[in-house]
């Protein structure tokens, strides 16, 4: 029978917490930057010129049909040969933003397309500028419609971010790798780490549900 030994994991728990904190910061930063990319690309895809639409479509299809692991290898090992050298954490953030941007664009686009044309026409009739219409008439209700998909995409992003440990960024999974090579208690380390990821995804789901109740209180009229 195998003797479980959690003592070294408990002794170095602060390292794991530090890793978890970086995972959370990395995911949140990637989500915010990725959302900007998504909104710009979704706008370009729905109302941009044809060449822009083609480039955006190519970007989405390439990212969605290749593994994140290969994307991060490409960014971390491939880009330096083009003269762009990034730190592991920088490359991790860039890869996550690029990855989230592709999925986010499709989500935001679906939200924009759910806005009825009459609403935009009403905005024009009220004399709003093109940017004002996009911000208040299209974007705000669109974000509400896609809020559930966006939040589950964020959870997925946070789980995917564990892959950045392979280029030795300082996230939770990498903290686990360091700890397991120091203690050889591999199974115990990864059980704890897995539970920490589970706790983070449950925690974020609860936070998002609370935000949903607060931010989208105004009634829907259809």
């Amino acid at each position, binding site marked *: 029978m195998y003797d479980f030994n959690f003592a070294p994991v408990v002794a170095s728990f602060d390292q794991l917490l530090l890793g978890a904190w970086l995972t959370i910061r990395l995911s949140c930063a990637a989500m915010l930057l990725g959302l900007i990319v998504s909104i710009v690309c979704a706008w370009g895809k729905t109302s941009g010129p044809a060449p822009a639409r083609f480039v955006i479509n190519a970007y989405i299809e390439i990212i969605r049909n290749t593994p994140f692991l290969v994307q991060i290898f490409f960014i971390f090992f491939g880009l330096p040969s083009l003269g762009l050298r990034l730190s592991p954490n920088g490359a991790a953030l860039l890869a996550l933003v690029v990855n989230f941007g592709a999925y986010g664009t499709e989500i935001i686009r679906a939200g924009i397309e759910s806005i009825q044309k009459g609403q935009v026409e009403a905005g024009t009739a009220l004399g709003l500028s093109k940017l004002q219409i996009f911000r208040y008439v299209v974007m705000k209700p669109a974000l509400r419609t896609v809020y559930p998909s966006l939040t589950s995409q964020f959870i997925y992003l946070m789980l995917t971010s564990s892959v950045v440990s392979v280029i030795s960024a300082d996230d939770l999974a990498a903290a686990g790798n360091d700890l397991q090579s120091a203690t050889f208690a591999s199974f115990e380390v*990864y059980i704890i780490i897995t539970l920490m*990821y589970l706790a983070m995804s449950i925690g974020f789901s609860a936070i998002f549900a609370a935000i949903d109740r607060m931010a989208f209180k105004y009634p829907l009229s259809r």
Partner: protein
Amino acid sequence: MIRPFGWNEFLIIVMAAQWTIALSAIAFAGGGVGGLLIALARVCDIRPLRLASLAFIRVFQGTPLLMQLFLVFFGMNILGLAINPWIAAAIALTLHASAFLGEIWRGCIDAVPPGQREASTALGLRYYNRMRYIILPQAARIAVAPTVGFLVQLIKGTSLAAIIGFTELTRQGQIINNATFSPFMVFGTVAAIYFVLCWPLSLLAQRMENKFSRATQR
């Protein structure tokens, strides 16, 4: 000595795709069986079974695939089995696929109008016949598009088996990169092969989804 990235290296990477395809096929077949069991457990009348299957899905959807791979990989050691990346990857991906397909298919079973179940019960069909002839065939039609969509996710997921040392497409890319030191070409090639595998499936899933939503919109 640094080897140049040539035709031979390209072919070695292309050949490694067979292991990616084999691993995807095994995980998809195993996940199909497991997913059906999970989906049936999710909609059954026995409460503990429903809760257990829900917990299984939540755990696998709430933790990274990479950690699932590590746990199976090191867990095999604890059970006294020899560590074998090939088997560990196959088991972890099968469990992963079971959870995701189970959740997808539960949604499809729920999407079959409740009148169908009531009518078949009224006709005197018992559980097996009701599922086999009435509910599952209708759920299967709804399930095709999202299932193909998940297959793309699964193929991409097999790349993580590279981290536990199974030599599939991504790992072979790493090995070639270590010898040739031309990461731009190597990982560009690897990405292109994944794209060739996944893109047709993505298009197929998209097309079926559009067709299905047009057919049900009336």
